[in-house]
């Protein structure tokens, strides 16, 4: 990754919604559009860019219930529990973390509290494990990582 790639990454923080969003950036950086596209492809291949996409404000979209679920999963069950919980499309993130007695974290976004509680109960019963859903009471900040 060189200086030009860094400048490209900065410009890619905020794209315009238009027919040719990459053309505008190529012009700004004084590059041929083809070269810009090729560099972006490369950055994706290297894994530096995951994708170019939109992020929605899920609260505005009606998904006001956001629960971070935590549980204690014994080490020998982590793999199977992780796979099972990740299989639900309503679960957006699923990680193990260290530093706390609860080592397993996953996120559910739903419209109502009842919806995620129903899913949590289902998972909890299937796995025979206690799951604590920590509902978000207030969102103070939500931004993407940008350079």
């Amino acid at each position: 990754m060189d200086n030009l790639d860094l400048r490209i990454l900065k410009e890619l923080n905020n794209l315009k919604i238009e027919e040719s969003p990459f053309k505008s950036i190529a012009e700004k950086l004084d590059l041929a559009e083809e070269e810009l596209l090729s560099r972006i492809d490369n950055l994706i291949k290297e894994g530096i860019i995951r994708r170019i996409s939109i992020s929605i404000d899920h609260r505005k979209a009606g998904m006001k219930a956001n629960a971070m679920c935590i549980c204690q999963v014994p080490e020998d069950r982590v793999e199977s529990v992780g796979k099972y919980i990740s299989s639900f499309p309503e679960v957006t993130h699923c990680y193990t973390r260290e530093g706390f007695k609860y080592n397993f974290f996953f996120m559910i976004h739903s419209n109502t509290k009842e919806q995620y509680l129903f899913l949590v109960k289902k998972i909890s019963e299937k796995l025979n494990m206690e799951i604590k859903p920590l509902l978000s009471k207030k969102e103070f900040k939500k931004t993407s990582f940008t350079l």
Partner: protein
Amino acid sequence: MDSIDWNIVERLQEGIPIAERPFQRISKELKIPEDEILKRLKKLKREGLIRRFGAVINYKKLGYTGTLVATKVPEDKIEEIAEKINKYKGVTHNYQRNFEYNLWFTLIEKSQRDLEKRLKQIEQEIKPEKMISLPVTRKFKIGHIQKWIT
């Protein structure tokens, strides 16, 4: 957002093709005219439903490191403390939650050393009753939010 908006939004959250006319390709996939897609997206952006259109960067590949921080702070001071935390550029998410640890935020910095310095700095500024850093050990899924299905 109607169901056509959701169709478009869900497709776009997966990522656009890196091409001269990315929305033209998506238009063929979704069987929705390109100008309609653009019109709807612009409207959603104006209304604030779309927060951002840009590159999702894997900060770890750039050498950055991050963690989730759980803090316990007095409920009556939570707003002013949250504002202090928000000022830090490395803080991307910040939420109040109903638990003993009631204020949770994510922090991303250029190195492990910078991260530890920043954690000390934040701790000294907000003086929480409790504060723990919970870095990820294993990732099973990093996804995006979809319309509730069941």
